[in-house]
C-alpha cells in the first residue's frame, strides 16, 4: 500500500508535460520543510555539543528522539528528502549556511569544536564504509586500521628529518598508504565471503595493532607526536578572526574536516547514481547473477575497497594532525566496531544517515560522563533502542529511481 502510494507520486510526468501548479507548489513547500528541518537540526547539534548540564543533554536527546520518530511517522523525513532532491543547489547552500551557523555559535568552545571535527572524521570514514559495506557488501571490520594508516603516515612524515612534505600532500599520501596497505587484504577479501570475510578483516585489524605496539620506529605503545597542519601558508594553530569574531583554532580543523566530509558525500552520491552504483549493488545482492550478466566481480570489489580506504586514510592523516598525538590504542578493534555501528545505525547505504549516527556515537559517551562507567552501557542501550524502533536505521536507504530523474 505504501509502495503504491509512493509510485503514484513518482508517475507525475516531469519532462514531457508542463509541470502542474500543484506539483510545483508542493515541491516548494517540501523545500521549505527541508530548510526548517536543517535549521532545527543545526540548532540541536550546536546545543548538544555545547551543553554542559548533563540533565539538559539527556532531556534534549529525548526530545530529539521523539521529534525524529514523529518526523518519520508523519512523513516529514520523506518531504525533506523530496525537497532536497528537487532543489540540489539551494540544498547545498542551506547545508553550508547551517554548518557555518553551528561554527559561529561554537566559535570559542575548544572542546566542542574538537568533538565536532572528530564527528566529521568518523563520518568520513563511515562514508568510505558505506561504499564498501553498504554498496559492495564487503565486510570491513578494520576501518580503524586504515584510519591509523593515514595517521601514522602523517606522523612518520613529520618525524623524517630534512624532508619537508607539504601537509596537503601528507593528507593525500595518508590515503595512498591506506590503499597500499589495504591491497594486502584484497586477495583474502576476494576469496572469502560473509562471516569469513569479516573474520579476515577482524584479524587484520588486530594484527595492525600488534604491529604498531611492537614497532619502535613508530613509537611503540607510546605513540608519536605531530605538529599542527599548515595549509597554503596558514598555520592551523592560530585562532581565526572573521567578520569581527574570533574563532578557536579548532575551527580550522572543523572547516578542513567539513571540506573532506563534503567531498566524501559528493563522491558517494555520484557513485550511487551512476552505473557503478548499480553494479556494486548487484555484486552485493547476487554475485552469481551479476557475474552471469557480465560483471567482473573482482574489479568492482577492488574499486569499492580502494575508494573506502582512501577516505579512511585521508581522514586519519587529518585526525592525527588535529589531536597532535597518536598511539596504537586510538585505532583498536573497538573503534572499528564503532564505525560499523555508525553505518548500521544511520541506515546501511544511506550516505546522509552517517551524519546523525556519527554524532550520536561520538558525542554521547563524552556527554554522559555523569553516569561514569555506565555511560557505554547507556550508549549501547540507545543503539539497540533505535534499531528496535527503526530496524533499518535512522534514515533507511531509498530505492534508486533513475528513470524519474533526481526527483525521487
Amino acid at each position: 500500500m505504501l509502495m503504491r502510494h509512493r509510485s503514484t507520486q513518482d508517475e507525475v510526468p516531469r519532462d514531457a508535460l508542463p509541470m502542474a501548479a500543484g506539483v510545483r507548489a508542493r515541491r516548494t513547500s517540501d523545500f521549505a520543510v527541508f530548510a526548517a528541518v536543517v535549521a532545527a537540526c543545526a540548532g540541536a547539534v550546536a546545543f548538544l555539543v555545547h551543553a554542559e548540564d548533563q540533565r539538559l543533554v539527556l532531556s534534549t536527546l529525548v526530545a530529539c528522539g521523539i521529534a525524529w520518530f514523529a518526523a518519520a511517522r508523519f512523513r516529514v523525513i520523506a518531504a525533506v528528502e523530496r525537497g532536497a532532491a528537487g532543489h540540489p543547489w539551494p540544498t547545498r547552500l542551506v547545508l553550508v549556511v547551517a554548518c557555518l551557523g553551528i561554527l559561529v555559535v561554537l566559535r570559542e568552545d575548544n572542546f566542542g569544536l574538537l568533538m565536532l571535527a572528530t564527528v566529521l572524521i568518523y563520518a568520513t570514514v563511515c562514508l568510505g564504509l558505506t561504499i564498501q559495506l553498504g554498496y559492495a557488501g564487503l565486510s570491513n571490520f578494520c576501518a580503524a586500521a586504515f584510519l591509523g594508516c593515514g595517521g601514522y603516515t602523517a606522523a612518520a612524515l613529520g618525524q623524517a628529518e630534512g624532508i619537508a612534505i607539504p601537509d596537503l600532500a601528507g593528507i593525500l599520501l595518508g590515503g595512498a598508504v591506506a590503499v597500499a596497505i589495504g591491497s594486502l587484504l584484497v586477495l583474502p577479501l576476494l576469496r572469502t565471503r560473509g562471516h569469513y570475510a569479516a573474520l579476515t578483516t577482524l584479524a587484520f585489524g588486530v594484527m595492525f595493532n600488534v604491529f604498531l605496539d611492537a614497532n619502535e620506529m613508530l613509537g611503540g605503545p607510546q605513540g608519536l607526536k605531530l605538529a599542527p597542519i599548515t595549509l597554503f601558508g596558514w598555520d592551523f594553530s592560530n585562532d581565526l578572526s572573521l567578520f569581527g569574531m574570533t574563532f578557536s583554532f579548532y575551527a580550522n580543523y572543523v572547516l578542513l574536516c567539513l571540506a573532506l566530509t563534503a567531498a566524501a558525500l559528493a563522491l558517494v552520491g555520484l557513485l550511487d547514481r551512476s552505473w557503478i552504483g548499480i553494479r556494486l549493488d548487484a555484486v552485493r545482492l547476487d554475485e552469481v547473477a551479476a557475474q552471469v550478466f557480465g560483471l567482473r566481480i573482482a574489479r568492482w570489489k577492488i574499486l569499492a575497497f580502494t575508494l573506502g580506504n582512501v577516505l579512511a586514510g585521508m581522514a586519519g592523516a587529518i585526525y592525527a594532525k588535529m589531536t597532535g598525538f597518536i598511539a596504537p590504542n586510538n585505532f583498536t578493534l573497538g573503534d572499528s566496531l564503532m564505525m560499523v555501528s555508525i553505518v548500521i545505525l544511520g541506515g546501511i547505504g544511506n550516505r546522509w544517515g552517517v551524519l546523525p549516527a556519527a554524532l550520536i556515537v561520538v558525542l554521547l559517551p563524552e556527554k554522559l560522563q555523569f553516569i561514569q562507567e555506565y555511560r557505554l552501557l547507556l550508549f549501547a542501550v540507545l543503539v539497540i533502542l533505535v534499531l528496535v524502533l527503526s530496524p533499518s536505521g535512522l534514515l533507511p536507504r531509498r530505492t534508486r529511481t533513475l528513470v524519474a530523474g533526481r526527483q525521487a
Partner: protein
Amino acid sequence: MSALAAAPAILEAKGLSVRFGGLFALNALDLTVRRGEVLGLIGPNGSGKTTFFNVTSGIYPAAAGTIVLDGRDITREPAHALAGLGLARTFQRSRLCLPLSVFDNIALGAQERLPQGVIDNLLRRRTLTRTVAALAEEARDLARLFNPDLAQRLDEPAVALGMIDRRRVEICRALIGRPKILLLDEPSAGMTHDETNQLIDEILDVQRSRGDLTVIIVEHEMGLIERITDRCVVLNYGRKICEGHFREVAADPTVREAYLGHS
C-alpha cells in the same frame, strides 16, 4: 522443422562432463542447438538440466569436453565474458536484486553498453543521462511486450512485484543484452498454471518477433513443453537418453522408464 534442421548450430556441446566429487552430474553429453530453435531440456530431478545451464554460463567448470557458442569455444571462458558473447539466462529461483528498481534490474543486463571507467561514470554525467534515457526507452518497450502495466513501474523496487512480473523482469534483463541464445530455467516455478501459460505465450511472441533468437528451456510441465518446443532432449543421470520431437520423446519407453521407474 526442416528449415530448422538445416539451420547452422548456435550452441554445440561435445563430450561435456561435469563432476561433483565422484558423481557425474553431466556425463559425456553431446548436444547441438540450431539457430532460431526452441529446445526443451527435460528429465527427472537431478538429471543434469540445470547443471548444463550452469556449465554453459560459466558458473561450473567442465571436467571434460567442449562447448562451442556460435563458432567460438567458450568452455574455459569466465562467466562474466559470456554475456558479451551473446548468452543470457534466467534462474530457477528468481534472482532479481529485490531492493533495486525494476529499471536497475533490467539495465544490469546491458553491461556491454554501459560505461565502464570510473571517470566516465562519476564525472561525465551527460553520458549517464543519455544511457539512462536510451535504456529506459528500451526497457519500457521490452516490458510492454509482456505487460503494459509493468512498463509503467520501472522506478518501483522489484520486491513490490508479484512472481509473474518478477519472471518477466528477469527475461527482460536477459533480452536487453540482445543475446543470441537464451537459457530459461523453469520459468513456471512458483507460478500458477494460468500464469505460466500466459508467460509462455509472451515468451513465444518475443521469440518470434526476434527472428533468430534461440531458446533452451528447462521445464517440468510437459503440456508447456509440448506446446512450445521444436525439439526435446531428455537427460537422465547426466546422460542424454532420447532426442526428438516431443511426441516421439514422450512415446519412448526409456523416457517413460526414467520418469516412472520400472513397473
